[in-house]
């Protein structure tokens, strides 16, 4: 083979190989950058979604502030528990009823902030007043439930009611 021909042939082979390698590298780089871009876009989308969710949640919190305050007031918080018990007794006094809180029982703490305060109390007095007091207990504007009620005639027109009811407390 003519040396010049040989040289041209080898040069062509080397040039072809180098071109192929460079092309392969370019393809590889395009692929890599593309994958990076895809993951970046996915991350950006997630962040955007997170931000949107946060903004909408904040908006929802602002819009529902009053409603949530009303709902929170349907539960006894730590600050109002003692006052609530005093109110029960004072109200019974106002109804001309003898009253005694027999027991109080706060349910065990769970993962949620709600606990049931179980109140067992007895009231003694005229039947109509006892009945109205029980109605009042049922109508307490709190998340409450009358669990047990026993009414018995003590003597003449004097009746005794033993009421067990629960009020849900909210510890924030």
């Amino acid at each position: 083979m003519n040396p010049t021909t040989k040289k041209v042939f080898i040069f062509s082979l080397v040039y072809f190989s180098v071109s192929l390698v460079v092309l392969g590298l370019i393809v590889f780089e395009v692929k890599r950058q593309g994958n990076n871009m895809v993951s970046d876009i996915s991350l950006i989308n997630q962040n955007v979604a997170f931000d949107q969710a946060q903004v909408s949640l904040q908006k929802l919190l602002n819009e529902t502030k009053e409603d949530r305050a009303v709902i929170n007031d349907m539960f006894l918080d730590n600050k109002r528990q003692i006052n609530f018990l005093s109110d029960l007794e004072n109200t019974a006094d106002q109804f001309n009823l003898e009253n005694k809180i027999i027991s109080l029982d706060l349910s065990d703490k769970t993962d949620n902030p709600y606990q049931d305060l179980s109140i067992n109390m007895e009231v003694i007095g005229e039947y109509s007043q006892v009945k109205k007091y029980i109605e009042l207990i049922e109508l307490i504007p709190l998340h409450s439930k009358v669990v047990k009620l026993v009414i018995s005639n003590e003597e003449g027109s004097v009746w005794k009611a033993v009421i067990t009811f629960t009020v849900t407390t909210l510890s924030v």
Partner: protein
Amino acid sequence: MITKNDVVNMARHIVRKDKGKTDRSLMHPQREWNISILIGGIMLIIGITYSSSSFLHYRSILNDESVAEIKTANYREQLVDQVISYYGAKKDSYDHLFNSVVSKSTPVENTESGTATSTATSTIDVGIEILEEEEVATEEETIPDLITG
């Protein structure tokens, strides 16, 4: 005399000899050039196909505006409204019953009237505390009623 057959035989002999000639040249510029153009063309087509498919693929990703959905708190407004109206009605009934009983009850001694007043206030506090500024007006309206009653 040369016959027709002799001419044909001579021609055949020449043709056969020509077929037997070997080409000793390794490079054929025309052929190599054509092969190079062919290979270059194939590579160009592959490159165009690959780049266009990549372009279309990544463009579709860029145009894809479907944002990943994150679960947000579901605020059940209707239920909240129902609950609020239910407890509002419960509170009204409570106030009504309480006021009716207290107003009908026999006047208590002066020492107890203080208790009655504070009871009314605190009882209302349990239920109200909700309407913030409005509650003050409600309390002010309710308490004199209880006292006069």
